[in-house]
């Protein structure tokens, strides 16, 4: 018990001595503290007083928002474009093939298919020189001439490469004097105008009746 009491007394004495123990402070230590405090103060000001102003700035929000939106859009575009990369490639290739096939192959085929049939009918009439009698389109005398002009115009517009040939075809139409020249040139016209649909048939028909009418007179 005596030891415990003595220990308690020692503890109380230590506490009383060390509780208010102080060490003298030098000027260097004070200056060091001021320097440290200045560093922290500037850092504190930078954080505490400038952050609210930055947060309140609307332009910064708009810029950052637009930037995020752009990034999101790019991301979405890349997401949707990556799986469908195969599809556009097939789409881009197949139509090109189709167009080339249609343009390059279908026209020659059409010309070969259509022109012989027209030629057959026309040549047969031209050789016999009885076209005016045999053709059923004699009643339509005025209309085919108009059709000729219109067709020639369309042909001139569409087929620029064949403009010279078309000019040659127009001149005989005006001078329907010789029968031998006209059908040959008309044959050329028909071969060139093969792209045009069945409207070629009435082109030749009205010219022959006029000639025949003159001869008969």
């Amino acid at each position: 018990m005596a030891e415990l009491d003595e220990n308690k007394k020692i503890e109380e004495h230590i506490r009383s001595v060390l509780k208010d123990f102080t060490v003298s402070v030098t000027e260097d230590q004070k200056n060091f503290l001021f320097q440290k405090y200045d560093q922290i103060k500037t850092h504190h000001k930078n954080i505490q007083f400038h952050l609210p102003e930055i947060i309140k700035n609307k332009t910064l929000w708009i810029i950052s928002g637009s930037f995020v939106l752009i990034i999101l859009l790019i991301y979405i575009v890349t997401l949707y474009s990556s799986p469908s990369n195969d599809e556009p490639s097939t789409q881009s290739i197949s139509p090109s093939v189709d167009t080339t096939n249609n343009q390059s192959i279908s026209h020659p085929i059409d010309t070969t298919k259509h022109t012989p049939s027209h030629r057959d009918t026309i040549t047969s009439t031209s050789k016999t020189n009885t076209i005016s009698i045999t053709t059923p389109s004699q009643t339509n005398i005025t209309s085919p001439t108009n059709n000729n002009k219109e067709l020639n115009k369309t042909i001139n517009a569409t087929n620029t490469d064949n403009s010279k040939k078309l000019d040659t075809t127009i001149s005989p139409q005006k001078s329907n004097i010789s029968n031998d020249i006209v059908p040959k040139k008309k044959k050329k016209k028909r071969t060139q105008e093969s792209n045009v649909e069945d409207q070629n048939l009435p082109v030749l028909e009205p010219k022959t009746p006029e000639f025949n009418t003159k001869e008969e007179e």
Partner: protein
Amino acid sequence: MSIIREYHKQDFLVHKDHSALSRLIDDQYAKCLGIAYRYCKSDEQANELSSQCFITTLKNLLAEEEPEEFDENTFVRQFIICIVKTILDQRKGELIADTTIVASLKKNEANLFSDSDYYKTLSPQDFIQHLRKLNTVQQIIYNLYCIDQFTIKDIANIIQHHELSIKALIERARFNLISSIKSIV
């Protein structure tokens, strides 16, 4: 009854005005430096940690918006917590287990030749030297509990240890310190 000094936080934030800081240093830094001498193992470490923790404590107090004032007791308490945590961070690898062994025979021998008031002749620096003989954790716990009068719960929170082990460490630190003092006498 000594008047408890109070400090307004706004005074510290005035631009290019060190009057508040100068006042705080004049009032509290000597005391804080004495506390650091008790907790640290050397005077050099005490000087280094006291300046560091003094500014850190002030920064932490100013960072809190409320209350707008703080008194000297709050400041000193925060300073002690800061210095304890700093020391423990520096000595993370050290075991909490007691490594200071004072033989019971020495204690008995000291008692045989001791005077009843022998400890009163010792200076504060002598007591600090005895404290520094303890291991780091015992030194900290003894300072916290016996001198600065922290509760066991607070100490357990600061050291991040169980309260029961804190109690055991306090008893061991007491025994070792008094034995160390008696052994010299």
